[in-house]
């Protein structure tokens, strides 16, 4: 069983959602990346989304754009991101790692070399924001052949035919974009989101993660009862951007994640 499938099976038994923080690889520093990943786990993260920086992150808001720009300015390359995952795996064999980014840097490496290197490093899933299932058949197969889940997105605007195609091609989980907007934007209607996620879980037969617009423990508590996973991105990236040293970044990450980790666990007790 893959790490992602194992995690979701285990959490289903525990009756709670997974907490998946997002951080941009190489931000706030190159050296902080692996220690931060461990810190997230120590603070209660169940899996990690690791951002692969891209020069033109079209679907991201200012927080993650700037983090990408900073990381690229420090010289981050896709091979370095994979190397950090390998380093993380040396002392952590159980926490799923999902890489998130855009197609072009992956294509520059070549999808087959990328899938092989990612599998060797210990990557579990890959989200390419601008790769739809229609355009991404070859990429999805290349990833799956090496045991990596291609994770597709669905949005409030997605109709039934989109659900069908994502079900036929995606694995691991499906990422539900909770709002019409970019990462880090404000969210209005969580009740509608949760209703849609309930429907999608039925239709997809895959775990559904909710992301975009979740910034604090209160919101995590609100959505965790109705989803398989909750992704928190921009809010963490904002906090890390303020940190002057790697030690401060690690301490900040732990302080920020702990209440969120508590919130997914509390939400479980409420629904149990």
């Amino acid at each position, binding site marked *: 069983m893959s790490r992602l499938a194992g995690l979701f099976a285990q959490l289903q038994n525990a009756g709670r959602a997974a907490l998946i923080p997002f951080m941009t690889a190489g931000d706030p520093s190159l050296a902080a990346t692996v220690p931060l990943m461990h810190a997230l786990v120590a603070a209660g993260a169940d899996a990690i989304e690791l951002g692969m920086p*891209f*020069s*033109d*992150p*079209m*679907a*991201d*808001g*200012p927080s993650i*754009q*700037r983090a990408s*720009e900073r990381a*690229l300015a420090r010289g981050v*390359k*896709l091979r370095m991101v994979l190397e950090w995952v390998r380093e993380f795996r040396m002392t952590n064999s159980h926490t799923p790692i999902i890489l998130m980014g*855009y*197609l*072009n*840097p*992956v*294509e*520059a*490496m070549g999808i087959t070399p990328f899938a092989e290197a990612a599998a060797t490093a210990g990557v579990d899933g890959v989200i390419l*924001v*601008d*790769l*739809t299932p*229609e*355009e991404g058949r070859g990429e999805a197969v290349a990833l799956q052949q090496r045991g990596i889940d291609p994770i*597709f*997105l*669905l*949005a*409030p*605007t*997605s*109709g039934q035919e*989109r659900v069908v195609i994502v079900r036929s091609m995606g694995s691991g989980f499906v990422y539900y*974009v909770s709002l*019409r*907007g*970019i990462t880090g*934007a404000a969210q209005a209607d969580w009740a509608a989101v949760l209703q849609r996620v309930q429907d999608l879980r039925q239709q997809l037969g895959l775990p559904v993660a909710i992301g975009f617009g979740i910034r604090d423990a209160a919101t995590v508590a609100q959505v965790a009862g109705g989803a398989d996973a909750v992704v928190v991105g921009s809010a963490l990236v904002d906090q890390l951007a303020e940190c002057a040293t790697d030690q401060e970044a690690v301490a900040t990450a732990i302080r920020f994640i702990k209440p969120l980790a508590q919130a997914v666990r509390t939400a479980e007790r409420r629904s149990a």
Partner: protein
Amino acid sequence: MGTYALPDASGHYGPYGGRFVAETLIPALEELEHAYQEAQRDPEFRAELHSELRQFVGRPNPLYHAERVSKELGGAQIYLKREDLNHTGAHKINNAVGQALLARRMGKKRVIAETGAGQHGVATATVATRYGMECLVYMGEEDIQRQSSNVFRMRLLGARVTAVSSGTRTLKDALNEAMRDWVTNVESTFYVIGTVAGPHPYPVMVRDFHRVIGDEARVQCLELTGRLPDCLIACVGGGSNAIGLFYPFIEDKAVRMIGVEAGGLGLSTGQHAAPLTTGRPGVLHGNRTYLMEDEDGQILPTHSISAGLDYPGVGPEHAYLKDSGRAEYVAATDAEALAAFHRLCRTEGIIPALETAHALAHAFRLAPTMRSDQTIIVNLSGRGDKDIHTVAALEGIHL
């Protein structure tokens, strides 16, 4: 090539084009595709577009025989397709009118656009006002500096201009920001893309709205010279004016088609905006095409004297035409474009846009190698009033 019928049903030109966007936008692109197909079939829409192009844009514009410069060069006869005489001073208005009519038909009250040199922004602001829509234009901070008169023009026309400070602060970043706006406001908003790039159906739709350039030029050339031209030349940033001129001639195999990219400080310096000449295929802004990117797939900063060509990608149909050999792509440097700019000013009494000057530069190189009974059509895609500050500054003159 056989009968040319691209793009295919999913918006591909061979391996290029397609639809590479965040899931949130897919339904909006499907809605747009259906609305556009319906509009195309609707005689009322076509009649309205035709009427607007005549009454508001001022079409047809002339195909002008540039006799003095042709004589001076001593070779082929150069004809200029006078898109600079359109309302707002460039070809961009053809597409802006088409998309705005489509937006109105779809019931969208708000239009957004990205702009580089500001010509597309001005065109969009113009049609938005004409059809009573709210208009917001995204423009890179650097381009706002370079093109302050166009910024003011957009504001006069009632549009809001938002400065984009991310990335390289030029056209590509303005496009990113417009996409982000569209993702956020997808139900109320129509995104008027200004070039033949972006996710399907934009490249085909923008091409169709600009093909009037080539359709007119073809008829006019036959009238004036009794035969088809030997060569078509147009500048290529995203490539909208070039595809507009080229497309109606694609099946006329004897007609050479040459796109001229921005060679900047020279191709060997890396300081240019010539993805077709120097780049490789990749995915950016919703489509697969030739890009200027580094070995890690990060998009490279570009340089051109002309803001309108300062873009690291190019329309996917140009990528296809390059690979298939049907069109050729070359580059002209900043200096060559400037020399051509001055030459046209002084020989023909026409101040061309700096973008257009790149096409002229290549025409002036090529004409002397051809016979005097041969014909080159250059798409005079825009007028240069917007560029006089840039040109003056290069000569140390402060206006």
